[in-house]
């Protein structure tokens, strides 16, 4: 499993994908951070957090599009699935590689806090930590969704576009949810809506239900990805 993780990390950083992702992540986070904090002359991080996680709709698909699509295209999935490694191991290795690359982005974006300090704004450590944790959790959930979609197609482009659409739906359903006339559909949509739980984390509150929610979204999609490959075997 570690071998696959290592190869995956390597492939992020021997191709431009890893660097592009990190550069875009750093640039976007810096811009939003500046916009919502010292340019607005506030030390309130919730606006920054909300906008950042919304931007994941565009950024995460770049990270996950080639995860399995590339393996399927090059038929290297045959290598992984006939090696003495479990399917679960393969999927988790891919997931953690994407998550680590993503977390490197989050880590880089923490440079922004230095500018806050330089400009003499005071941010509560608790809120900052809660927010970072939130970013990682939402990111993990989005990555799991992206990996699941990548496992269903041979084309990176299709994987990227489809992930983009699915993530957009999951993020923005709560925006137009009230316009839906059916109560049951509203309930369903709000339950799959990643966006509906931001508020709990955006304030930097340590909300257990939100944490559990994002973890379970990640878990469900990882499980679904494993199922995709098991199903493929049984056809």
């Amino acid at each position, binding site marked *: 499993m570690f*071998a696959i993780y290592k190869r995956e990390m390597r492939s992020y950083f021997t191709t431009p994908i890893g660097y592009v992702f990190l550069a875009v992540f750093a640039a976007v986070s810096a811009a939003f951070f500046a916009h919502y904090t010292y340019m607005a002359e506030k030390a309130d991080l919730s606006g920054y957090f909300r906008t950042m996680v919304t931007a994941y709709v565009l950024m995460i698909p770049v990270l996950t599009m080639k995860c399995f699509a590339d393996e399927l295209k*090059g*038929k290297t999935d045959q*290598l992984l699935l006939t090696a003495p490694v479990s399917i679960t191991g393969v999927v988790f290795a891919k997931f953690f590689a994407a998550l680590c690359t993503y977390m490197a982005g989050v880590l880089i974006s923490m440079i922004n806090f230095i500018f806050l300090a330089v400009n003499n704004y005071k941010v509560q450590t608790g809120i900052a930590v809660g927010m970072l944790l939130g970013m990682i959790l939402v990111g993990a959930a989005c990555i799991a969704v992206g990996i699941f979609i990548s496992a269903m197609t041979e084309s990176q482009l299709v994987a990227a576009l489809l992930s983009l659409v699915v993530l957009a739906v999951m993020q923005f359903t709560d925006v137009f949810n009230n316009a839906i006339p059916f109560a049951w559909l509203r309930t369903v949509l709000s339950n799959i809506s990643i966006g509906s739980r931001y508020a709990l984390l955006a304030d930097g509150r340590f909300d257990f239900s939100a944490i559990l929610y994002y973890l379970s979204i990640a878990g469900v999609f990882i499980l679904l990805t494993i199922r995709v490959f098991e199903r493929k075997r049984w056809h």
Partner: protein
Amino acid sequence: MIKTEHLVKHYGKVKAVDDISFEVAKGEIVGFLGPNGAGKSTAMNILCGYLSSTSGKAMVGGIDILENPKEAKKLIGFLPELPPLYQDMTVREYLNFIYDLKGTTLNREKHLAEISEVTGIDGVMNRLIRNLSKGYRQRVGIAQALVGDPPVLIFDEPTVGLDPRQIIEVRTLVKSLGGKHTIILSTHILSEVQAVCDRIIIINKGKIVADEKAATVAGAVTNLSNLTLKICGPKKEIMAALGEMDGVTSVEDRGNTDADSTTFFVTCAGGVDMRKPIFRKMAQLQYPIIGMEAQGLDLENVFMSAVSDEEEDQGKKRRKRGARK
């Protein structure tokens, strides 16, 4: 070493593998022979644990591939139809990755050096796989299967896309791996199994239609009851002279090959080698023989007859079904 019992695999309504049972002893090289789409690859993929069988059992080294896939897979080196290569890696990086992936415990440097030497890729170790020619990619694919020194090797069409020299090299390599390793290789090239395998399993439409020792099939090649002769001289006289000989049962005129020679197809009584008597007779009559060939049952014929028997049977069934309707 390898054992399958009543393997069946459905793809939707299509039966890709239909009740295949066979056993392969340790050190044996077995050739899967069959036309394209016969179910060879599917059977191999089931053995390697890439696909699951709809029913039936596949065991490698006594371990059921479905019950204990991890242990069973440790025993297998697999080269799929398309070598599973990562284009963005160098050969060295790739083999190191495979080494880690398989959890190999042999001395890394020594083991990989040995494999690269055996497969003839030691000169391209630092090149990107993307830039390799088809022949080298195939070899890297074989090298990948050899990492970890697995006792069972499964090669799906290992010589496809190679040039004639590379084909011979790969065959020699496979042959040299036999004995120490148990090998199954698939191909639709008849001469290949003849050259490499101890045993031949012919598969058509998902079923085993023949399972024979290669030596038995090779024996059929030296069948001397049918001779094709090219002789210069007057057609009628030659026909008569051949027909008169003891041991010759029939002579057939196959037409002129060029201005002054004719091709004859001679059937001889079983067990009699008529080549020398015919030569002496023609020499005596001063009709030079410019070509003589024993046209026995070669593998091609064995294969064609095995495959077409099957088709005839199915044709009959189909006709019967049609009649019932």
